């Protein structure tokens, strides 16, 4: 039975609420409370996101004076134009794309074969290797010793510092192992063996093509993780040209180092200065949207798979 086809049993509770007439007074009060609470939750989560979107396309002066609340006003795309004019942001964006793709690739090459080997009951040493991995989830050398090892490996200021040390995600590996265990039957292996197929061939030609769902989940998990993280880059990449998008965002959104040059002191100049400052703030809203865009575009797809992944993960074997 595939773990990925459990949808049929998904809705259990609301099927038995009965018709409106048969519901007791207590139940109706309960339903009303649930409805109100969840609507509040919905608004609390949705409004800040919505606000970012409308602010990014509204007149910056109106946004800065708090006049944009429910609808965009004075629609302009100036913020977006400003973002695209910023060389370092674009550079960071492409750096991040590169690190993410490479990171996902390396991670899969390391994780999937291990997961498959550990899913096989006939694999000698399975227990020992499992313990070897699980231990790393609970004890770690800490920041400094890890940093020193990465440094002595010569990874400072290279992609490898971001890509290699975390390539073996133990949790991901266990999810993949559970998937292989439940979805690749031993009979399949026996049949292939009789046809003269060895383990490597079997893994590449039969196991991987059958594992699209789990590969998608891992790609998304690892990819989003790489795209959104900044700590490793802060730690290991000192050269500005190599820094990923999240660090560039940090300069602008958090450290606010993006100063507007002074324009002189005439009335016109002061007005212009005001406007530029407003644009600078507006750029932040646009920047938030652009930097989240890759993830946002994948979101509908991600959501479906992420949820499945959590389900498989919680049933770890």
């Amino acid at each position: 039975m595939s773990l990925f086809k459990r949808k049929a049993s998904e809705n259990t509770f609301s099927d038995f609420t009965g018709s409106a007439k048969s519901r007791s007074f207590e139940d109706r009060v309960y339903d009303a409370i649930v409805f109100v609470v969840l609507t509040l939750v919905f608004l609390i989560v949705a409004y800040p996101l919505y606000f970012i979107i409308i602010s990014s396309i509204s007149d910056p002066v109106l946004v800065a004076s708090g006049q944009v609340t429910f609808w965009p006003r004075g629609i302009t795309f100036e913020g977006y134009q400003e973002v695209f004019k910023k060389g370092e942001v674009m550079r960071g964006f492409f750096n991040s794309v590169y690190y993410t793709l490479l990171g996902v690739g390396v991670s899969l090459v390391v994780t999937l074969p291990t997961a498959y080997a550990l899913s096989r009951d006939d694999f000698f040493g399975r227990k020992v290797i499992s313990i070897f991995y699980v231990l790393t989830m609970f004890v770690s050398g800490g920041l400094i010793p890890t940093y020193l090892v990465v440094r002595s490996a010569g990874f400072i200021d290279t992609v490898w510092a971001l890509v290699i040390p975390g390539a073996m995600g133990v949790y991901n590996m266990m999810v993949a192992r559970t998937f292989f265990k439940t979805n690749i039957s031993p009979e399949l292996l026996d049949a292939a063996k009789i046809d003269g197929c060895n383990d490597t061939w079997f893994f590449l030609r039969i196991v991987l093509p059958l594992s699209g769902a789990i590969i998608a989940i891992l790609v998304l998990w690892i990819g989003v993780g790489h795209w959104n993280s900044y700590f490793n880059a802060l730690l290991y990449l000192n050269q500005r040209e190599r820094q990923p998008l999240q660090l560039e965002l940090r300069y602008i959104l958090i450290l606010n180092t993006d100063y507007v040059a002074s324009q002189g002191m005439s009335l016109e100049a002061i007005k212009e200065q005001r406007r530029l400052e407003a644009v600078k703030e507006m750029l932040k809203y646009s920047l938030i949207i652009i930097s989240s865009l890759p993830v946002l575009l994948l979101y509908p797809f991600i959501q479906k798979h992420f949820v499945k992944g959590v389900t498989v993960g919680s049933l770890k074997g």
Partner: protein
Amino acid sequence: MFCLPGIIITFIFHYIPLYGVQIAFRKYSVKRGFWGSEWVGLQHFVRFFNSPNAVQIITNTLILSLYSLAASFPIPILLALFLNSMRHRRYRKVIQTVTYAPNFISIIVMCGMLILFLSPRIGIINKLLELFGVEAINFMGLPQAWRHIYVWSGVWQTMGWSSVVYFAALSGVSPEYHEAAVVDGATKLQRIRYIDFPSILPVAVMLLILSFGSLLSIGFEKAYALQNDLNRTVSEIISTYTYKVGIVDSNMSYSAAIGLFNSVVNAVLLVTVNWVSGKISGNALW
């Protein structure tokens, strides 16, 4: 052979650092390297515990993570129970889609949003306060506000996503229980109390134990991004401190000692909580 790349990477980047923890007991110097540096015993630990920072940092870390746990542990459970008992299925899907979304926002963007919204000059929150005649407040510079900002923005960001695992557990409850309960005249609240709640309890206990195991290693990324000179008295936690001492000030051994103290406390907490939980509820990790 399939396992080799993983084993090598894990060995180098997890097990060698574990061995390298001994620099916490040495006086690390770049010239003499990892293994050549001279032994100094517990000197770094003594120095840390005698420093005025130690108490403050450890207290900050504990308060922040206990507060976080108290807020972000029960809320997803409630959310999942509520969502599961919701009658409008389409509306439920919409709420789920929206509440999961913030989880995919990066920490930098999340903190950037907070700083924008709370800004005294242009932030929407202060604009709203001005409507009621309240003077603009610089929230990010207010030490007493910092923990609330940290914790509740975390709840905002993760509650939807954390509820997924509970929601999945609830979906696994056999419909027959609910049918039988309805026949017996149970109200919805009773069904939640006696059917749904017990079914997510094991998952909840497991996650609770695990979070106690990482009580002191509460994330670096967010605390560091939200930190500024004005709120440092409450926002300096162990992970940000080890980073600053070790990487920024290159005080490797001292920082490694603090890190080691952190890991040891985590391990002790994990084992203790797991043992207590096993005694009380029969749910334990091992």
